[in-house]
Protein backbone atom coordinates (compact mmCIF):
# COMPACT_ATOMS: atom_id res chain seq x y z
CA UNK A 1 0.00 0.00 0.00
CA UNK A 2 1.63 3.27 -1.03
CA UNK A 3 1.70 6.54 0.86
CA UNK A 4 -0.88 8.31 -1.32
CA UNK A 5 -3.44 5.57 -0.79
CA UNK A 6 -2.78 5.65 2.95
CA UNK A 7 -3.33 9.43 2.99
CA UNK A 8 -6.59 9.01 1.12
CA UNK A 9 -7.77 6.25 3.43
CA UNK A 10 -6.85 8.26 6.52
CA UNK A 11 -8.70 11.28 5.13
CA UNK A 12 -11.83 9.24 4.38
CA UNK A 13 -11.63 7.37 7.72
CA UNK A 14 -11.84 10.69 9.59
CA UNK A 15 -14.05 12.78 7.27
CA UNK A 16 -16.91 10.33 6.73
CA UNK A 17 -17.51 9.46 10.43
CA UNK A 18 -17.16 13.16 11.25
CA UNK A 19 -19.87 14.03 8.71
CA UNK A 20 -22.10 11.27 10.08
CA UNK A 21 -21.58 12.46 13.65
CA UNK A 22 -22.39 16.11 12.84
CA UNK A 23 -25.46 15.06 10.86
CA UNK A 24 -26.68 12.88 13.74
CA UNK A 25 -26.14 15.71 16.22
CA UNK A 26 -28.04 18.08 13.97
CA UNK A 27 -30.83 15.54 13.53
CA UNK A 28 -31.15 14.82 17.26
CA UNK A 29 -30.94 18.36 18.60
CA UNK A 30 -32.64 20.14 15.71
CA UNK A 31 -35.84 18.14 16.25
CA UNK A 32 -36.80 20.02 19.43
CA UNK A 33 -36.35 23.32 17.59
CA UNK A 34 -38.48 22.20 14.65
CA UNK A 35 -41.27 20.68 16.76
CA UNK A 36 -41.56 24.05 18.52
CA UNK A 37 -41.43 25.92 15.19
CA UNK A 38 -44.24 23.87 13.69
CA UNK A 39 -46.53 24.35 16.67
CA UNK A 40 -46.06 20.83 18.06
CA UNK A 41 -46.66 19.10 14.71
CA UNK A 42 -44.14 16.28 15.24
CA UNK A 43 -44.75 14.57 11.91
CA UNK A 44 -44.01 17.72 9.93
CA UNK A 45 -41.01 18.52 12.12
CA UNK A 46 -39.57 15.01 11.61
CA UNK A 47 -40.11 15.26 7.88
CA UNK A 48 -38.37 18.67 7.59
CA UNK A 49 -35.62 17.48 9.93
CA UNK A 50 -35.00 14.42 7.79
CA UNK A 51 -34.95 16.45 4.57
CA UNK A 52 -32.46 18.91 6.06
CA UNK A 53 -30.17 16.08 7.17
CA UNK A 54 -30.33 14.49 3.72
CA UNK A 55 -29.24 17.83 2.22
CA UNK A 56 -26.48 18.04 4.79
CA UNK A 57 -25.20 14.53 3.90
CA UNK A 58 -25.28 15.26 0.16
CA UNK A 59 -23.38 18.54 0.44
CA UNK A 60 -20.75 17.29 2.86
CA UNK A 61 -20.12 13.82 1.47
CA UNK A 62 -20.06 15.39 -2.01
CA UNK A 63 -17.43 17.84 -0.82
CA UNK A 64 -15.40 15.08 0.89
CA UNK A 65 -15.50 13.05 -2.34
CA UNK A 66 -14.51 15.97 -4.58
CA UNK A 67 -11.74 17.14 -2.29
CA UNK A 68 -9.94 13.78 -2.19
CA UNK A 69 -7.94 14.55 -5.34
CA UNK A 70 -6.98 18.04 -4.24
CA UNK A 71 -3.58 18.87 -2.76
CA UNK A 72 0.01 17.69 -3.15
CA UNK A 73 1.13 14.08 -3.33
CA UNK A 74 3.12 13.22 -0.18
CA UNK A 75 6.59 11.75 -0.51
CA UNK A 76 7.17 10.86 3.16
CA UNK A 77 5.19 10.06 6.33
CA UNK A 78 5.31 13.66 7.63
CA UNK A 79 4.00 14.95 4.30
CA UNK A 80 1.20 12.36 4.38
CA UNK A 81 0.20 13.47 7.86
CA UNK A 82 0.23 17.14 6.86
CA UNK A 83 -1.83 16.44 3.77
CA UNK A 84 -4.41 14.46 5.78
CA UNK A 85 -4.53 17.19 8.40
CA UNK A 86 -5.10 19.99 5.85
CA UNK A 87 -7.83 18.02 4.11
CA UNK A 88 -9.61 17.04 7.32
CA UNK A 89 -9.31 20.64 8.58
CA UNK A 90 -10.92 21.96 5.39
CA UNK A 91 -13.72 19.40 5.66
CA UNK A 92 -14.29 20.42 9.30
CA UNK A 93 -14.52 24.09 8.33
CA UNK A 94 -16.95 23.22 5.55
CA UNK A 95 -19.04 21.16 8.00
CA UNK A 96 -18.99 24.07 10.45
CA UNK A 97 -20.24 26.54 7.81
CA UNK A 98 -23.03 24.20 6.65
CA UNK A 99 -23.93 23.43 10.26
CA UNK A 100 -24.19 27.14 11.13
CA UNK A 101 -26.26 27.70 8.00
CA UNK A 102 -28.59 24.92 9.14
CA UNK A 103 -28.91 26.54 12.56
CA UNK A 104 -29.69 29.84 10.83
CA UNK A 105 -32.47 28.12 8.86
CA UNK A 106 -33.86 26.46 12.03
CA UNK A 107 -33.88 29.81 13.76
CA UNK A 108 -35.53 31.52 10.78
CA UNK A 109 -38.30 28.88 10.67
CA UNK A 110 -38.81 29.15 14.42
CA UNK A 111 -38.91 32.95 14.32
CA UNK A 112 -41.44 32.91 11.50
CA UNK A 113 -43.62 30.51 13.50
CA UNK A 114 -43.47 32.83 16.50
CA UNK A 115 -44.35 35.99 14.52
CA UNK A 116 -48.12 35.84 15.20
CA UNK A 117 -47.40 35.95 18.96
CA UNK A 118 -45.11 38.98 18.98
CA UNK A 119 -46.53 41.99 20.86
CA UNK A 120 -46.43 45.45 19.18
CA UNK A 121 -42.76 46.47 18.87
CA UNK A 122 -43.36 50.00 20.21
CA UNK A 123 -45.24 51.12 23.33
CA UNK A 124 -48.37 53.22 22.73
CA UNK A 125 -48.01 57.03 22.64
CA UNK A 126 -51.11 57.47 24.75
CA UNK A 127 -54.50 56.14 25.70
CA UNK A 128 -58.08 57.15 25.14
CA UNK A 129 -61.41 55.80 26.23
CA UNK A 130 -62.95 54.03 23.28
CA UNK A 131 -66.71 54.50 23.05
Amino acid sequence: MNLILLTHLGYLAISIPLTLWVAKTLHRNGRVFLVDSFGGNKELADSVNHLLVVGFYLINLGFVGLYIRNGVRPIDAAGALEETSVKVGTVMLCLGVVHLFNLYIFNKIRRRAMLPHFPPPLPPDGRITVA
Partner: protein
Amino acid sequence: MKSLTILYDDQCGICSRLRAWLETQATFVPLQFMPLHSPALPQMFPGIRDFHPDEKLVVVADDGNVWQGDSAWITLLWSLEIGREWSLKLASPALRPMARIVVAAVSQNRLKLSRWLRLSADSLPAEEICKDGSCRLPSNKLTSSLRSNAAHPSAGARN
Protein backbone atom coordinates in the same frame (compact mmCIF):
# COMPACT_ATOMS: atom_id res chain seq x y z
CA MET B 1 -55.38 43.38 21.23
CA LYS B 2 -58.45 42.27 19.25
CA SER B 3 -58.56 44.93 16.52
CA LEU B 4 -56.81 48.03 15.30
CA THR B 5 -58.58 51.09 13.90
CA ILE B 6 -56.69 53.16 11.35
CA LEU B 7 -57.67 56.83 11.20
CA TYR B 8 -56.94 57.69 7.60
CA ASP B 9 -57.28 60.95 5.71
CA ASP B 10 -60.20 60.23 3.36
CA GLN B 11 -59.52 63.46 1.46
CA CYS B 12 -56.05 62.28 0.45
CA GLY B 13 -55.67 60.08 -2.63
CA ILE B 14 -52.60 58.18 -1.48
CA CYS B 15 -54.22 57.45 1.91
CA SER B 16 -57.44 56.23 0.28
CA ARG B 17 -55.45 53.99 -2.08
CA LEU B 18 -53.46 52.65 0.85
CA ARG B 19 -56.68 51.89 2.73
CA ALA B 20 -58.00 49.94 -0.27
CA TRP B 21 -54.73 47.99 -0.49
CA LEU B 22 -54.70 47.26 3.24
CA GLU B 23 -58.21 45.83 2.99
CA THR B 24 -56.88 43.16 0.62
CA GLN B 25 -53.99 42.14 2.89
CA ALA B 26 -53.81 39.20 5.28
CA THR B 27 -53.45 40.48 8.85
CA PHE B 28 -52.60 39.10 12.27
CA VAL B 29 -54.96 41.64 13.87
CA PRO B 30 -58.26 42.63 12.19
CA LEU B 31 -58.06 46.18 10.80
CA GLN B 32 -60.85 48.72 10.80
CA PHE B 33 -60.76 52.03 8.96
CA MET B 34 -62.17 55.31 10.15
CA PRO B 35 -62.22 58.33 7.82
CA LEU B 36 -60.64 61.33 9.47
CA HIS B 37 -63.46 63.60 8.31
CA SER B 38 -66.24 61.37 9.57
CA PRO B 39 -68.63 63.24 11.88
CA ALA B 40 -68.74 60.11 14.08
CA LEU B 41 -65.02 60.32 14.88
CA PRO B 42 -65.15 62.48 18.06
CA GLN B 43 -67.94 60.35 19.52
CA MET B 44 -66.20 57.06 18.77
CA PHE B 45 -62.79 58.21 19.93
CA PRO B 46 -63.17 61.05 22.46
CA GLY B 47 -59.92 62.99 22.90
CA ILE B 48 -58.40 61.68 19.69
CA ARG B 49 -57.82 65.24 18.37
CA ASP B 50 -55.06 65.60 20.99
CA PHE B 51 -53.05 63.13 18.90
CA HIS B 52 -53.29 65.36 15.77
CA PRO B 53 -54.71 62.76 13.40
CA ASP B 54 -54.91 65.47 10.71
CA GLU B 55 -51.12 65.84 10.71
CA LYS B 56 -49.94 62.26 11.13
CA LEU B 57 -51.28 58.76 11.00
CA VAL B 58 -53.02 57.64 14.18
CA VAL B 59 -54.01 54.07 15.00
CA VAL B 60 -56.19 53.08 17.94
CA ALA B 61 -56.40 49.61 19.45
CA ASP B 62 -59.69 48.25 20.78
CA ASP B 63 -58.28 48.57 24.32
CA GLY B 64 -57.77 52.35 23.86
CA ASN B 65 -54.03 52.39 23.22
CA VAL B 66 -53.04 55.01 20.65
CA TRP B 67 -50.00 55.19 18.40
CA GLN B 68 -49.21 58.25 16.26
CA GLY B 69 -46.73 59.16 13.52
CA ASP B 70 -43.91 56.73 12.89
CA SER B 71 -44.93 54.43 15.76
CA ALA B 72 -48.44 54.25 14.20
CA TRP B 73 -46.92 53.22 10.85
CA ILE B 74 -44.75 50.60 12.53
CA THR B 75 -47.74 49.27 14.50
CA LEU B 76 -49.78 49.15 11.30
CA LEU B 77 -46.96 47.21 9.62
CA TRP B 78 -46.87 44.90 12.65
CA SER B 79 -50.54 44.03 12.14
CA LEU B 80 -49.87 42.78 8.58
CA GLU B 81 -48.64 39.27 7.88
CA ILE B 82 -46.19 40.53 5.27
CA GLY B 83 -45.08 43.43 7.46
CA ARG B 84 -44.45 41.99 10.92
CA GLU B 85 -40.84 41.03 10.31
CA TRP B 86 -40.15 44.52 8.92
CA SER B 87 -41.96 46.26 11.74
CA LEU B 88 -39.57 44.63 14.23
CA LYS B 89 -36.60 45.79 12.17
CA LEU B 90 -37.91 49.35 11.76
CA ALA B 91 -38.62 49.62 15.48
CA SER B 92 -34.94 48.97 16.26
CA PRO B 93 -32.88 51.99 17.37
CA ALA B 94 -30.75 51.69 14.20
CA LEU B 95 -33.61 52.10 11.70
CA ARG B 96 -36.19 54.06 13.67
CA PRO B 97 -34.71 57.55 12.97
CA MET B 98 -34.79 56.81 9.24
CA ALA B 99 -38.38 55.55 9.49
CA ARG B 100 -39.31 58.73 11.37
CA ILE B 101 -37.86 60.98 8.63
CA VAL B 102 -39.50 59.07 5.76
CA VAL B 103 -42.88 58.92 7.51
CA ALA B 104 -42.83 62.64 8.36
CA ALA B 105 -41.92 63.55 4.76
CA VAL B 106 -44.70 61.39 3.29
CA SER B 107 -47.31 62.58 5.81
CA GLN B 108 -46.53 66.24 5.24
CA ASN B 109 -46.58 65.91 1.45
CA ARG B 110 -49.41 63.38 1.12
CA LEU B 111 -51.77 65.77 -0.71
CA LYS B 112 -49.04 66.93 -3.08
CA LEU B 113 -48.01 63.33 -3.74
CA SER B 114 -51.64 62.34 -4.39
CA ARG B 115 -51.96 65.16 -6.94
CA TRP B 116 -48.74 64.12 -8.70
CA LEU B 117 -49.79 60.49 -8.84
CA ARG B 118 -53.36 61.51 -9.80
CA LEU B 119 -54.87 59.33 -7.08
CA SER B 120 -58.48 60.06 -6.22
CA ALA B 121 -59.56 60.31 -2.59
CA ASP B 122 -62.53 58.62 -0.93
CA SER B 123 -64.10 62.03 -0.35
CA LEU B 124 -63.42 65.60 -1.42
CA PRO B 125 -63.07 68.65 0.84
CA ALA B 126 -66.23 70.78 1.00
CA GLU B 127 -64.55 73.67 -0.82
CA GLU B 128 -63.59 71.33 -3.69
CA ILE B 129 -67.11 69.92 -4.06
CA CYS B 130 -68.69 73.37 -4.14
CA LYS B 131 -65.98 75.36 -5.87
CA ASP B 132 -67.98 75.91 -9.11
CA GLY B 133 -70.94 77.11 -7.09
CA SER B 134 -72.95 73.89 -7.26
CA CYS B 135 -72.55 71.38 -4.46
CA ARG B 136 -72.37 67.79 -5.70
CA LEU B 137 -70.84 64.43 -4.95
CA PRO B 138 -67.53 63.48 -6.55
CA SER B 139 -68.27 62.04 -10.02
CA ASN B 140 -67.27 58.42 -9.23
CA LYS B 141 -69.47 58.36 -6.11
CA LEU B 142 -72.31 59.99 -8.04
CA THR B 143 -72.13 57.36 -10.77
CA SER B 144 -72.06 54.44 -8.31
CA SER B 145 -74.87 55.97 -6.31
CA LEU B 146 -76.99 56.41 -9.46
CA ARG B 147 -76.20 52.84 -10.48
CA SER B 148 -77.29 51.45 -7.13
CA ASN B 149 -80.44 53.57 -7.20
CA ALA B 150 -81.29 52.21 -10.62
CA ALA B 151 -80.77 48.62 -9.43
CA HIS B 152 -82.62 49.09 -6.12
CA PRO B 153 -85.01 52.04 -6.44
CA SER B 154 -86.48 51.46 -2.99
CA ALA B 155 -83.03 51.52 -1.36
CA GLY B 156 -82.29 54.77 -3.22
CA ALA B 157 -85.49 56.33 -1.93
CA ARG B 158 -84.50 55.48 1.64
CA ASN B 159 -81.15 57.20 1.09
